């Protein structure tokens, strides 16, 4: 089984629109949206949910006011300043609590409970391009890699079951925990970037991460004609690092128009279709090389 993760470092480079097009062009793929914080792929694929499950992860501390004697030990020990003292006594700010259990373990009155946290929902759905695995984290939850890892495992298992040989993932943004989890065990990272100073900056940072994972990289420049000089710079930097170029896509309203129609850009008969077909063919060739 092979796995492609589309990432961008920077948000808004067009990662999800490109993934949507590849999802349309791919045969025998299972789709997976790893951007669990702000997932968008479902807006293009209109999934019919088949199974829905709760994602439980970690625990959070809760002080029971009846058992608390107000000694303040917990506030002293907490390194996250999550214990607040107000007129009603001590309480824990759930936004600041990291779930480390230190206060729970060291409270002399054992007045602190430690319930499990329900952090979001995850789904297996049908789409017109095949099965899709996706999730929605509740606002304010820690965007842990755990949910990303769970989705990938699920997608791989379903691919196995259905005899599909490709897992196509819309990766997590950034370079922190979620994207590190989305890179694990992947065969190819497609980095979608745009010719802006932030695009180049973030490409360099996320590329470093790919190199660390020894992941093959293909670079796709979106909106290339906004700044042809910078596009050249990005491309020569990329080839200099041994990356394959997956093509250039011009800035085109067709991408937004497709989004408004809830379609992949390759489904709308736009001029971008042949370009994206060529990019996808190149990506598949690299994957198998």
């Amino acid at each position: 089984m092979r796995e492609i993760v589309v990432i961008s470092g920077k948000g808004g480079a067009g990662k999800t629109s490109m993934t949507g097009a590849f999802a349309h062009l791919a045969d025998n793929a299972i789709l997976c949206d790893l951007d669990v914080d702000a997932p968008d792929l479902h807006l293009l694929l209109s999934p019919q949910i088949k199974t829905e499950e709760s994602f439980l992860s970690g625990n959070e501390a809760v002080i029971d006011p009846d058992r608390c004697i107000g000694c303040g030990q917990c506030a002293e020990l907490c390194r996250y300043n999550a214990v607040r003292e107000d007129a009603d006594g001590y309480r824990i700010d759930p936004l600041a609590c990291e779930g480390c259990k230190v206060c729970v373990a060291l409270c002399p009155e054992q007045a602190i409970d430690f319930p499990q946290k329900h952090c979001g929902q995850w789904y297996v759905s049908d789409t017109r391009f095949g099965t899709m695995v996706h999730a929605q984290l509740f606002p304010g939850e820690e965007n842990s890699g755990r949910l990303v890892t769970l989705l990938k495992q699920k997608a791989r298992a379903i691919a196995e079951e259905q005899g599909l040989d490709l897992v196509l993932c819309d990766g997590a943004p950034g370079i922190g925990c979620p994207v590190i989890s989305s890179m694990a065990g992947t065969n190819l990272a497609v980095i979608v970037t745009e010719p802006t100073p932030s695009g180049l900056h973030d490409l360099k940072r996320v590329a470093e991460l790919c190199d660390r994972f020894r992941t093959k990289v293909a670079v796709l420049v979106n909106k290339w004609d906004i700044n042809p000089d910078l596009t050249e710079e990005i491309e020569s930097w990329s080839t200099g690092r041994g990356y394959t170029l997956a093509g250039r896509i011009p800035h085109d309203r067709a991408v937004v128009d497709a989004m408004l129609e809830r379609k992949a850009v390759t489904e709308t008969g736009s001029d971008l279709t042949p370009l994206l077909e060529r990019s996808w063919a190149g990506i598949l060739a690299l994957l198998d090389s």
Partner: protein
Amino acid sequence: MIYAVASGKGGTGKTTVSSSLAALWDAPAALVDLDVEEPNLHLFLNPDLSSVEKAWIEVPEADEDKCTRCRACADLCQFKAITVMADTLLVFPEMCHGCGGCLAVCPEGALFPGRRELGEICKGTAGRHRFVMGRLRVGEAMSPPLMRQIRELFPALAKDGDILIDAPPGVSCPAINAVADADCIVLVTEPTPFGFHDFKLAWEAFTPLGKPMGAVINRADLGDSQVTDFCRDNNIPVWAEIPYSRDIAQAYSRGEIIATMLKGLEPVFTTLRDRMRAAARKEATHA
């Protein structure tokens, strides 16, 4: 006053708005890039960085001779960062959240504080403003502790004027923590299905904080009216609309600050600035 520029989704123009506000903020302020995974504000403001300091998190180190393998530390650690395997104590510093719990529970005093590098904190000036940014080390998974160290600078910075925060995108814990200190939140979005979906999530996530909030609609004429309809129905003021134009996209791609480079945009951002101030002030007098 502390102002945060946030967005449910990356790439909606948060940095465009932050850099333009910085250019038009007519009193010395502190510009803080809290998007530590992908700090971009410096690319537009070209600050003079007078100090770049490494940021650390405390992680345990073990004194093998004192350790009796009692497992008290391993039983406590919620992040599997310390464990006893066969007869060896193992510490995985990259998984440690620095809670200090293992040090506190070890009955033998066998653990002592060591450290792991989180990234760096850069300070300097950008024109008349102070500038602070955090940058997560590539390969480091945890952004909240680095953000926390920057937020600890806020009380000192606030003494000298306003603070403008460029918040990380998204609606998870780092994004909420970044706006939690603010007196006023600006939510940047765009009128596309992706933009609208993420805008709604962000609005739902930030509303419980009870701060004055307004929207900036970027590429305002590009998509549909879902965002404006939603703002109207939920009484979210639209503080600015930035039209879609190729000139703006090109100016941005050259690393320019659009409010000062393009004629016609300056009033959009001065109005935004004044509306943010009014909202924060109103909130302050209420409280």
